[in-house]
């Protein structure tokens, strides 16, 4: 049964909400945003056709508030809900509630989310489809002793993982038995806060693996295709920073083999819509199924850049009940794409999130640069949500050209008011190991040194000495009349006049 979608509510915020709105506009579909009070000035609220405030700030009262989101969807008469990534995107209960309200959920059916979202169940399903998996406990462990036993059997290092979700939360690598008890407690409590589910399972930790994932699309008729791989090995605490496609280690033969396994894994769970199959690949090019993400991924733009396929558009097409728009032999990969995730974090302080108002933002642009950004100058990075500011994507005919373009874009990009990882990204993409394609998931911990990132060139230091001396000198002569207006900066007043 085909049902045309003409109005969509986006149950998310920031850049991904805006990303979905943009495709909707391309397709002439009306959009509804929901937002927390503190997100009121963000572009995804301004650019939607309709916007409804859903609560003050905490995720629980806003973007995780299932019933309220459905109430707004019904009130605004949308045909479908797009969940984005994070929040409710992998919550089978929500997907079910949406369906039961007579609204289309743009994503997999609740059963498929349940199967593949539960990491333990997913391993069972995939392994019975004879796809290799990393050794691990196939059920959540009940106590510390089971983890200790696992460590004895398979050897260290081992990995503790939350059964309820991903993104590096509730995850700990344990190198020695002596570290296990503290790590177990930390993983449990983090999993509980992040997903409301403190179940943990254990797996053997592969050393020096590469993290390579495949984008897949499946329709309601049992058809599945893959859109190639994404290399996501540049990560910190399991949080990806730089992604690219294609991966330098994937040969056309291996791509075909892994792509086939990815599609087979998805179809074996009766998966529908867009999803991602994550693999770990070792030095001998053996690949192991890691997990499936039953949602649109943060890093999907790199795939879009080399396939020229709008993945959100395909998601909507599948959700309407149509067949896939492409067959596997029509998927062609052109050139190379790299994405840098720009985070509000301080690389000099162990990548601590940096909150505050974005005082200045000069974006990067120019040929073959795409930017998916959820905030503008004057917006706030708050403690309530993920500190990602933007995704910068560069395309080139070759990897070398793509890297050079990314460097050009990062050099153009200027943000002040909050700390960002822009210069850390700049350092990474110029590092010889990265340029040579010789890296694994430990690249950041092994090679990254904040001391190497900051530009302490003598000319800059001298210039800054002059600048600050003149500044202090000027301040002295104007101190008296500048003091009275300190509470509200003129710039802020000016900025917010535009909204009135």
């Amino acid at each position, binding site marked *: 049964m085909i049902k045309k979608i003409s109005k969509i509510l986006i149950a998310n915020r920031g850049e991904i909400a805006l990303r979905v709105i943009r495709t909707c506009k391309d397709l002439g579909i009306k959009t509804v945003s929901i937002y927390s009070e503190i997100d009121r000035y963000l572009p995804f609220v301004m650019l939607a056709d309709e916007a409804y405030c859903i609560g003050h700030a905490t995720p629980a009262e806003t973007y995780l508030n299932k019933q309220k989101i459905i109430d707004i969807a019904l009130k605004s008469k949308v045909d479908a809900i797009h969940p984005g990534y994070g929040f409710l995107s992998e919550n089978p209960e929500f997907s079910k509630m949406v369906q039961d309200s007579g609204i289309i959920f743009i994503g997999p059916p609740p059963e498929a989310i349940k199967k593949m979202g539960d990491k333990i169940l997913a391993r069972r399903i995939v392994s019975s489809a004879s796809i290799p998996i990393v050794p691990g406990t196939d059920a959540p462990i009940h106590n510390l002793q089971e983890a200790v036993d696992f460590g004895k059997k398979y050897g260290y290092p081992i990995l503790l993982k939350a059964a309820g979700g991903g993104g590096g*939360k509730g995850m700990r690598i344990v190198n020695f038995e002596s570290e296990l008890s503290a790590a177990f407690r*930390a993983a449990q*409590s*983090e999993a509980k*806060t*992040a997903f409301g589910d403190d179940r943990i399972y254990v797996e053997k930790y592969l050393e020096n693996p590469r993290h390579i994932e495949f984008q897949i699309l499946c329709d309601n008729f049992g058809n599945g295709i893959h859109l190639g791989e994404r290399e996501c090995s540049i990560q910190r605490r399991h949080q990806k920073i730089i992604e690219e496609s294609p991966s330098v280690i994937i040969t056309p033969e291996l791509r075909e083999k892994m792509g086939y396994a990815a599609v087979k894994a998805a179809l074996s769970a009766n998966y529908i819509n867009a999803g991602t199959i994550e693999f770990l690949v070792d030095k001998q090019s053996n690949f192991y199924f890691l997990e499936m993400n039953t949602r649109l991924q943060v890093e999907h733009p790199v795939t879009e850049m080399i396939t020229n396929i709008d993945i959100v558009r395909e998601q909507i097409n599948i959700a309407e009940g149509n067949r896939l728009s492409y067959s596997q032999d029509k998927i062609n990969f052109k050139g190379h794409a790299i994405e840098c995730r720009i985070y509000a974090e*301080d690389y*000099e*302080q*162990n990548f*601590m*999130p*940096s*909150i505050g108002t974005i*005082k*200045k933002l000069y974006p990067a642009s120019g040929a073959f640069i795409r930017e998916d950004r959820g905030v503008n100058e004057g917006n706030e990075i708050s*403690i*309530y*949500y*993920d*500190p990602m500011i933007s995704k910068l994507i560069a395309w080139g005919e070759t990897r070398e050209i793509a890297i050079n373009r990314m460097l050009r874009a990062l050099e153009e*990009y*200027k*943000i*002040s*008011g909050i*700390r*960002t990882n*822009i*210069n850390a990204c700049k350092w990474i993409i110029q590092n010889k190991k990265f340029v040579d394609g010789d890296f694994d998931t430990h690249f950041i911990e092994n090679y990254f040194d904040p001391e190497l990132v*900051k*530009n*302490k060139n*003598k*000319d*800059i*230091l*001298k*210039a*800054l*000495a*002059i*600048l*600050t*001396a*003149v*500044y*202090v*000198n*000027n*301040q*002295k002569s104007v101190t008296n009349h500048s003091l009275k207006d300190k509470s509200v*900066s*003129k*710039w802020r007043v000016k900025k917010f006049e535009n909204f009135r």
Partner: protein
Amino acid sequence: MSDFLVKIENNTYSIDILDTKKVKVNDEEFEYQLNFSDNGECVLNFGNKIYDATILSHNDSLITLAINNDVFEIEVKDKTEQLLEIFNKGREEKFKDVVIKAPMPGLVLKILVNIGQKVEKGSSLLILEAMKMENEIKSYTTGVVKEIRVQEKTSVEKGDVLIILE
């Protein structure tokens, strides 16, 4: 004595401001052009380059400034402050306390040290939960825990004093 003594990244510069176009740095004369706007933006022409910086904060003699996505903390002392420093030299306490502050608002999950405990540079002091992540607050110096100002399971604001080392 020069007009200003500027300390930045372990370098010291003596600056004399001659007029709005000329400045002396460590007794060498340079031309410059510098413009400020209300919101702390500044554009400096110096040598054959243009520097575009933002003044983020100015407390006493400490200026925090952003340039090219890097942040610098710069100490600027005028003549009075330079004299005061000379006067105070030798009178300063031998052991100076180090204050560890919360870098962001959050919830103190666990305190990992006890009063009297010796800590190394990089030792974890406590775990602060913010943005759904557990962040380890580390010591940036070697010292002994003198005071713990917070309790587990309590919220702190950015800049709140967490732990004092001596």
